[in-house]
Structure formats: structure tokens, C-alpha cells
């Protein structure tokens, strides 16, 4: 017998022995697709300082086998728009993204010259498909698939991270942390969290001794620029609750008071924005400074849309750029991209030409097309005004 004959026989025998897949594999795929939870991940970074205690509970993100459907799964229309709603009341979505939550700001005075800037969230209730006001949380990020949100309690920095089930509205699990956390972001596939640690609440505001907004009154509350109390970040595996903390302070003059970490497009690095050039610093999960990934050279942390899902384009202000060359690939006139709906379409802020730039609404735009599809009503008030809402997007 020749070796190739034996290879053929062995492969055929092995193939015929395979028991069939369990029924429901298609649904497993569709659920996984929604969450983009690719199972094969780079191994969790070796612990620099393993600190986070293991939270014992059923892994929340695997609870997709139940029959209860999410509101965002009931309506799978490509575009779900409510152009008459501002702020939005019912689910808004386009392509692969949805408006998962939004928040408004207000300053809560603590002393005569100190206040805390507080976010009031409206979070998608996956039972009803409506945005519901919550004042329980000081910070929220929503995982891809919109089944789970990571939440922080009031009084930042917080000593535990909650995993909130958007269907039941209950925190299913707490991940305790030794160092105070004031910001959390999910990785692109939802399997990890990067939590930014601070020694002080980064949302403190102080009464400015000048008239910042030019309304004739010295009544403006400002962060203390140049005094960021950021200490570093945790990268936490959501299923196990295990993670490691890395010190990452940078020169505090180059950081905003709140300067949270977020994941790179491929989820393998984290980055921090900087207020001065080079504007961004990337780190591996052990806290070592590393170079920007090749296709993130033209990404700026301040632009929300970032890289397109295929990693080839960058959504910037007024233009879409080629991610590798930085050359303009398309103009997106008068619009501020916020999130990619797919590789060709973006959700953006849009104000009618010739109108007040603050009078803007969510729209869906298509690269290479003048078509603008309104998704929400127009926001009112100037930047920073009460009632002005800021969107949070997630993959649906």
C-alpha cells in the first residue's frame, strides 16, 4: 500500500465516523454572528499583576440558547428609523449597528466650587425595544449583540463592574476590581473589557473663574485640565472575570482628565487618546507601549466611526480615507461619521446645509452617494446644553 492510499482511506474513515451536528446549529451561527464572538482569540496576556478576583456565575454571554428573543432581533429590517423622535424613544438601527443607548449631561453641585458631571442614560430595553431612562449607572458600554451592558455604579471610581442583562434589566454578575474603575469598553467581539482606572473621579468639574461660554455669567464648570488621575487599565476576560492590570499614566499634560482606554479595531491592543501629537498611544495587554497598527495610522480617537468593519477605510470628519495610504476615498460633506453600518454605509450626524451646525440629526449615508436617510429627529440646543443627547452604538 502506498502512503497516499492510506491517507485517502484514513480520511474517509474519519469522515464517516462523525456524528451529525446538533439541531439548531444555524441559530447558533446566527447568534454568534450577532455577537461576533469569534472563539479563537489570541491567548490572554500573561498576567502583569493578576488582581481581579474570579467572579463565580454562569457565563452571561453564553446565555443565548434560551428562546427569549431580543427586541432588536424581532425587527431585523435593514433600516429602522424614527425621524420624528428627538431624543429617540424606539429602537433605531441601520445595517449592522443600532443605537444601543444615549445619555445627557448635567452638573451636580457638590460644594460652591466643585461639581460632578453626571450622565443620565436611556438604555435599550430588549423586552420592549424602547429606550428607558436610568439614573442608576454612572457609566455604560453595550456589548456587541446588545444582550449585555457593562455598568459602573455611582461615585466613581467604582470597585466593581456589573454585567447587566438588557432583557431582564438585572445585573447578572459583578466583577470586583481592586483598583477604582471609571470607564469600561467592550472589545469588538464582546469577549473582553478594557476598564480604565483612576485614583479620583475623572468627571469632577470646578467653577471656572472666567466666562467660558460667553453668556455674560461666570457660571461655567470645567474639568481641571492637565490633572488627570488616570493610573492604568485592566483587560478582563468577560466569561471568567479574570484579568490583569497595567500601569499606564503618560504625561498628564497630554491627557484629558477623563482619558479612557479602548480596543484597537482587531481587539488585540488597547489605545489611549492624547491631547497632543501623536494623538494616540497604543499598548499591548501587558501595558507596553507599541506602535500603531498599519491600518490605524489615520485613525483619530476623537472621530467616533474609526475603521470600517473590513479595516480598509477610516471615517473622519468630512471625508472617508483609505486606511493604509490616508488618501481621501470619498467626501462626506458636512457630516460627522459616528459608526459604520457596514463597509459602505455610515451613521453620521448631519445638519441641513446652511443651518446651525448644532441642529443635527442621525442619518445613514452611503459612500459615493448623495442619499441621506434620516434616522432620528434633530438635536436641540448648543454643545453641552441640557437635554442634548449623545449616542452609543453597538452591533446588533
Amino acid at each position, binding site marked *: *500500500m*502506498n*502512503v*497516499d*492510499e*492510506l*491517507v*485517502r*482511506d*484514513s*480520511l*474517509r*474513515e*474519519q*469522515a*464517516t465516523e*462523525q456524528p*451529525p*451536528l446538533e*439541531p439548531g*446549529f*444555524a*441559530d*447558533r*451561527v*446566527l447568534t*454568534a*454572528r450577532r455577537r*461576533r464572538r*469569534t*472563539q*479563537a*482569540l*489570541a*491567548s490572554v496576556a500573561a498576567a502583569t499583576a493578576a488582581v481581579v478576583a474570579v467572579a463565580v456565575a454562569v457565563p452571561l454571554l453564553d446565555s443565548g440558547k434560551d428562546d427569549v428573543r431580543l427586541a432588536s432581533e424581532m425587527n*431585523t*429590517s*435593514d433600516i429602522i428609523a424614527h425621524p420624528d423622535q428627538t431624543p429617540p424613544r424606539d429602537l433605531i438601527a441601520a445595517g449592522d449597528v443600532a443605537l444601543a443607548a444615549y445619555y445627557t449631561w448635567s452638573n451636580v453641585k457638590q460644594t460652591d466650587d466643585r461639581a460632578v458631571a453626571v450622565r443620565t442614560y436611556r438604555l435599550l430595553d430588549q423586552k420592549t425595544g424602547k429606550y428607558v431612562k436610568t439614573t442608576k449607572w454612572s457609566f455604560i458600554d453595550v456589548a456587541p449583540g446588545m444582550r449585555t451592558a457593562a455598568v459602573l455604579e455611582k461615585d466613581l471610581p467604582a470597585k466593581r463592574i456589573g454585567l447587566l442583562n438588557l432583557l431582564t434589566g438585572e445585573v447578572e454578575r459583578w466583577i470586583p476590581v481592586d483598583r477604582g474603575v471609571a470607564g469600561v469598553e467592550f472589545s469588538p467581539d464582546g469577549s473582553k473589557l478594557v476598564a480604565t482606572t483612576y485614583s479620583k473621579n475623572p468627571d469632577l468639574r470646578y467653577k471656572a473663574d472666567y466666562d467660558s461660554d460667553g453668556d455674560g455669567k461666570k457660571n461655567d464648570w470645567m474639568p481641571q485640565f492637565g490633572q488627570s488621575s488616570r493610573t492604568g487599565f485592566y483587560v478582563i476576560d468577560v466569561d471568567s472575570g479574570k484579568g490583569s492590570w497595567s500601569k499606564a499614566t503618560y504625561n498628564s499634560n497630554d491627557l484629558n482628565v477623563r482619558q479612557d482606554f479602548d480596543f484597537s479595531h482587531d481587539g488585540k491592543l488597547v489605545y489611549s487618546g492624547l491631547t497632543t501629537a501623536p494623538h494616540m498611544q497604543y499598548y499591548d495587554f501587558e501595558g507596553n507601549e507599541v506602535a500603531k497598527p498599519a491600518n490605524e495610522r489615520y485613525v483619530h480617537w476623537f472621530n467616533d466611526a474609526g475603521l470600517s468593519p473590513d479595516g480598509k477605510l477610516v471615517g473622519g470628519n468630512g471625508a472617508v480615507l483609505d486606511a493604509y495610504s490616508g488618501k481621501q476615498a470619498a467626501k462626506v460633506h458636512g457630516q460627522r461619521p459616528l459608526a459604520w453600518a457596514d463597509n459602505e454605509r455610515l451613521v453620521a450626524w448631519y445638519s441641513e446645509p446652511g443651518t446651525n451646525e448644532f441642529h443635527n440629526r442621525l442619518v445613514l449615508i452611503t459612500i459615493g452617494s448623495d442619499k441621506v436617510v434620516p434616522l432620528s429627529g434633530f438635536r436641540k440646543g448648543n454643545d453641552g446644553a441640557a437635554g442634548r443627547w449623545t449616542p452609543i452604538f453597538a452591533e446588533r
Partner: protein
Amino acid sequence: MDAEGQEDFREFVANRSSALLKTAVLLSGGDRHAAEDLLQNALIKAAGRWHRIDEPEAYVRQILYRQQVSRWRLKWPRRELSVPELPETGSGTDASSAAELRLVMRAALARLTARQRTVLVLRYFEDLPEADVARLLGCSVGTVRSTTHRSLARLRGLAPELAALGPADAEQQPSRDFSPVEVRP
């Protein structure tokens, strides 16, 4: 994907997943969990462009093969297979030896690189000609030929039982690039 697309997708998976899984298991060197992951990932990609695919099965298969090869390129740590020792075998050539030999071969296949295994699965399980394998994997015919040659040679080197086998036709050619060259008169 709209509701109709989802229904269509479910039907495709129900009808074809078992056949696709077989290929995925072989590509994964017999690791059933890795195979299901591999297939799931391929199907996720297919679902993403469902309404634009003419032949779903061909599309999913191509992703399976290419995913496997690019995994090898990326050297994902989780994808390094941990494989038990080759099973002990008797030394004789009795009636059970053919079955034993297939088991030894299976264990040896699991120890190949993903790329080597993928080429062998395409050549000897899917029975594809070299040109089709090259097209599917995005490499030259010469590369397919040399990878096949090296993979079979490695299999024979992995266990004494396999070393005793006769060389395959593919091994009798030197591992040079035999890509067709256009010759003009």
C-alpha cells in the same frame, strides 16, 4: 439578513452542515470542537453576504480551506493542536493491521501543519486536481505539488509503520516548482 434570508440560511445549514462538518473535522486534524468553531466561523462569514452568494456550499468550503491556511499563517496559539502520542501498534501484518495503520495515520495527520493537512484533504479526500487546489488556496500549482510531496514525506517520517509504506506518486517527483510556463514557438 432579512427573515427570508435567515430561513434560507437555516435550510442550507440543515441540509449541508453534516457534509461540511466532515471536511472541517479533517481540516482540524480530528478535533471536533475546533471543527465546529471552524465551520461556525465560515458560516458566519457566509451569513454576512448571504444574498450575494450564488453557490453557498462552494463559498463556505473555500472559506473553510482558506481560514485554515490563514490560521496557520497567523500561528494563532489556540490553534496549535495538542495531539496525544501516536498509538502503540503491533509489529505484525495481521488482519487488524490495516485498521491500526489507519489510526496511526490519523494521529500522524493531526501532527501536520494546518496547511499541509489542508492540501492533503483537498487532494485525497475531496479528490481535487492540483490546479483546483491551487485556485482554492490562492497559491501556485507548484506550491501545491511541493506541499503535497513534503506532507506525505513527513507522514512517513512520523511513525515507523508509515515509513514502511511505499512512496506515493507525488513523492517521486522532486519538490521543485512545476508551475506551467507559457512557451511560445
